[in-house]
């Protein structure tokens, strides 16, 4: 993962997304540091308490947690991922659009090239839940990634509104033939039929090696 200072990342992302930074509502920096320290610690109860309560820290913890998701210790990485999800779910609550936008602004840059695919896949699904039109461009860019395009397609399918639909329509022309059916499925789900691409969902493809008894 490229080295990025949390503060720089927060400011840069917020500016890029054209939203107010979360700085005004930011919790003390020591809250983020304490969260990360507990998640990287060896006490599993303290670690669990930390990720369970990460939602209250919100956007400023997004990038630091994402960094820890690449930790070689499985439980540490898992706790970071779960903490990130807590932030996403809390930011999506009603009447919290400012928090949602701040979290989205932090998540979007994590889709950039150079971050681990596993983390980017997770972020795509997070944006599928709380992303709006501001998320469409970075998500749509990953339709060109062989590893991540299916998750990106799913995210666009779920993000409501005209921007995501237009991105899917544009993708139909830009993706390879081996992925057009996937895009067509999302378009169908969004109410747009594409001629010449009948649904293949019931077409069997995988044969067993097991033989019937004589």
């Amino acid at each position, binding site marked *: 993962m490229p080295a990025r200072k949390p503060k720089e990342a927060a400011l840069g992302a917020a500016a890029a997304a054209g939203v107010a930074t979360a700085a005004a509502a930011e919790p003390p920096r020591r809250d983020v540091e304490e969260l990360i320290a507990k998640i990287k610690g060896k006490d*599993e*109860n303290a*670690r*669990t308490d930390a*990720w*369970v309560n990460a*939602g209250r820290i919100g956007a400023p913890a997004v990038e630091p947690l994402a960094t820890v998701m690449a930790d070689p210790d*499985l*439980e540490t990485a*898992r706790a970071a991922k*779960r903490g990130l999800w*807590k932030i996403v*779910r*809390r930011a*999506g*609550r*009603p009447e919290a659009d400012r928090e*949602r936008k701040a979290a989205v602004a932090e998540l979007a840059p994590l889709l950039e090239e150079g971050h681990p695919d*596993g983390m980017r*896949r997770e972020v795509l*699904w997070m944006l*599928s*839940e*709380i992303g709006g039109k501001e998320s469409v461009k970075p998500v749509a860019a990953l339709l060109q990634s062989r590893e991540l395009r*299916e*998750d990106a*397609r*799913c*995210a666009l*399918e*779920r993000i*409501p509104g005209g921007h995501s639909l237009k991105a899917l329509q544009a993708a139909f022309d830009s993706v390879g033939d081996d992925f057009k*059916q*996937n895009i067509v*499925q*999302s378009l169908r*789900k969004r109410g747009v039929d594409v001629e010449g691409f009948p649904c*293949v*969902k*019931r*077409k*069997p*493809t*995988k*044969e*067993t*090696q*097991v*033989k*019937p*008894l*004589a």
Partner: protein
Amino acid sequence: MTERARVSRRRFLVAAGAAASVPYFVPSRVLAAPGRTGANDRITVALIGVGGMGGNHLGTMMRYRDMGEVNIAALCDVDEQRLAARIKDTGPGVDPYRDYRYILERKDVDAAIIATPDHWHAVQTVHACEAGKHVYVEKPSSVTIEEGKAMVAAARKYERAVQVGSQARSAKPAHAACTYIRNGMIGKVHKVTCWHGRNAIGGTQPDTPPPPRLDWDLWLGPMRWRPHNTAYYHGSFRQVMDSGGGNIRDRGAHVFSTIRWCMDADGQAPVTVETKGTANTKGIYDCPPEMEVVYTFKDPDWVVVWAQPGDRHTNYPDQNNDFGMAFYGDQDTLILDRDGTRYAPPEKARSFQTPPGGVEVYKMDRFKNDNYEFGSNEYNMNHKEDWFQAIKTGRRPTMDIEKGHQTAVMCILGNLSYVLGRKLQWDGEKQEIIGDPLANRMLGKPQRHPYHL
């Protein structure tokens, strides 16, 4: 071509059967002579998913086959080792498949029994209905609200009998409790509490390449892709929110079905759902080890509390029975162990006789189980019998998909409130969460191509 000539043989026979007011089901292969039970009356079934409960279903179908009432045409599983073993158990004349869609292409298959992990239930049920198959699908019927709605729509559009495997609706203990409660013997019920053992903590092993015997892509199916890990399967899929949803979606789908039956509440939805739960401290399993969900219902007003572990109000304290329910009426209380399948209710309910003019509750008891013997499988046979009769008569099965969906709604919303960390206001008519747009976004989940509705 004349109009008559354009009517297929099958359609003609169906129409003729219906016109004569006799069961309209005609098996795919041949038509039986009236009143004669023989090979011609057999329903040809295929089983999709033959591990765990799928093995139990296979056992019931083999009993039916022995009785001359069912043909078993095919078995399907994504685990080749398990598939081979089940084919061996079942004997000659049964075709193995890895991909269930081959089964749906077969014209000779009348019905499918689906016992795959939960995340496959809806897609396979909808596809089977579209292919003209009747369906018995394991509970919970779906993992999202959107899936459940699609299942109901498919069953209705294609006029298929879709039975959900909450088999207490065909079990003697649950029937006795239902009859007792519906006849007002404990008064007006204002609260039902459930207890269940904790969800598991675990799944700490690292990801590995999938073994050659397992088609990981097909196992995942509609779910988002993830690296293979043995913690996800086979039985342990229950402990993962995406695939199993923990015990509230497993046993909860049984218990809530029985509660809704006893309360005569199949048409009623909760208006609020609020969950508190603890967090899993390690491993892949992500369901809350302990949780409490409070569901409120209006008109009539009552409450359901699902609790893990909750207070164990069992009638059988000397047995290792880890779930059940207690009905609190304004005159008395009734405790029912498990989901009302394996354990008899208290004597007062067991010996109750419906008075003249009282409420009679539908009962399927072709296969008798007079002594409530622990471990009896007769309720599984009776639940299949109900399904077969629904197929043959065109009526809806006792645990029709619409009721199964309404039950699954409770399981799904209970978990969703936990995941989101907030109380949900539910509009059962519109099947929407009120005032929470991002929670509504989670009533469905995008599915991987091509394993989608």
